[in-house]
């Protein structure tokens, strides 16, 4: 079981590096197995966005942290894929270029994974296959409506 963990860790590490490079359009990332002072095992993350030097992940920007996190979560996901995956406003801190790369990667999981994305991002909405709007015509009470993708601006439920 220790050997199985080692093998899984190696796979996650490779997937993390691949995912990171695809989400950032370059750069390097790695995972390290470490031992803490209390002799406990832990995992450290190293991330180097394209064009920059490796530094502590604390110094990364809001968007860079979201992308690095996403790369790691997807790497874990690929190890034990679920048939469906819910993403709640993951694109909120991302600029347009990063949102595009992110959506492209989701599209590639398509067929094998059913993605349900909550978003405020118009870009993301355009790339979804189907769109549902949640509205509150009756204050405090949620209702589901189906949204037509053409004429999206009018259809997206306004407050």
């Amino acid at each position, binding site marked *: 079981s220790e050997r199985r963990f080692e093998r899984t860790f190696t796979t996650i590490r490779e997937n993390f590096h691949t995912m990171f490079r695809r989400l950032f359009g370059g750069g390097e990332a790695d995972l390290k197995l470490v031992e803490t002072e209390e002799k406990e095992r832990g995992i450290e993350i190293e991330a180097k966005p394209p064009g920059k030097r490796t530094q502590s992940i604390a110094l990364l920007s809001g968007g860079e942290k979201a992308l690095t996190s996403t790369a790691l979560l997807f790497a874990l*996901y690929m190890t034990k894929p679920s048939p469906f995956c*819910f993403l709640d406003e993951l694109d909120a801190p991302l600029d347009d270029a990063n949102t595009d790369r992110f959506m492209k990667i989701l599209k590639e999981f398509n067929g094998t994974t059913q993605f349900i994305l909550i978003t405020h991002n118009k870009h993301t909405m355009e790339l979804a296959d189907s769109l549902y709007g949640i509205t509150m015509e009756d204050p405090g009470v949620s209702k589901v409506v189906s949204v037509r993708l053409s004429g999206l601006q009018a259809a997206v439920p306004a407050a």
Partner: protein
Amino acid sequence: LFIKRLELSGFKTFVRRTTLNVDAGMTGIVGPNGCGKSNIIDAVRWVLGEQSAKALRAARMEELVFHGSEREKPVGMAEVTLTLDNESGVLSKQGPEISLTRRLYRSGESEYLINRSPVRLKDITDLILDTGITTGAYVIMEQGKIDSVLTARPTERMALFEEAA
């Protein structure tokens, strides 16, 4: 084992029986602030067996039952049904469709059903274990929590990895 539909009744802001049909591929859910989008995520976690109220932003499970709005009265029960597509026969003992239902009464009593037959919570969690579905941070990625894996301590991340291994 894709999701076919989610039905909510009395769960948080979904006081009236509401059905969300989910297609294959990528589904977007949109709407203004506070309209109920993240509540849908909470409903999925809950029906899959979440036992921590805090993970659903509540202090106690009872807070999941619709507690009224300016015009609507509170109700006495919350119910969520998740229907999964089993056409591929992943779960060999089950039919082409599997529905999981969870109910909570304001009194605190809970009910669990698989394909409308009463079961125990354990039966639901066992079924989910068989499918390989988890509700880990990489299956349900939460609003505002995305960089928690970065701020977590190295030992806490280890727990996440061991779950995936």
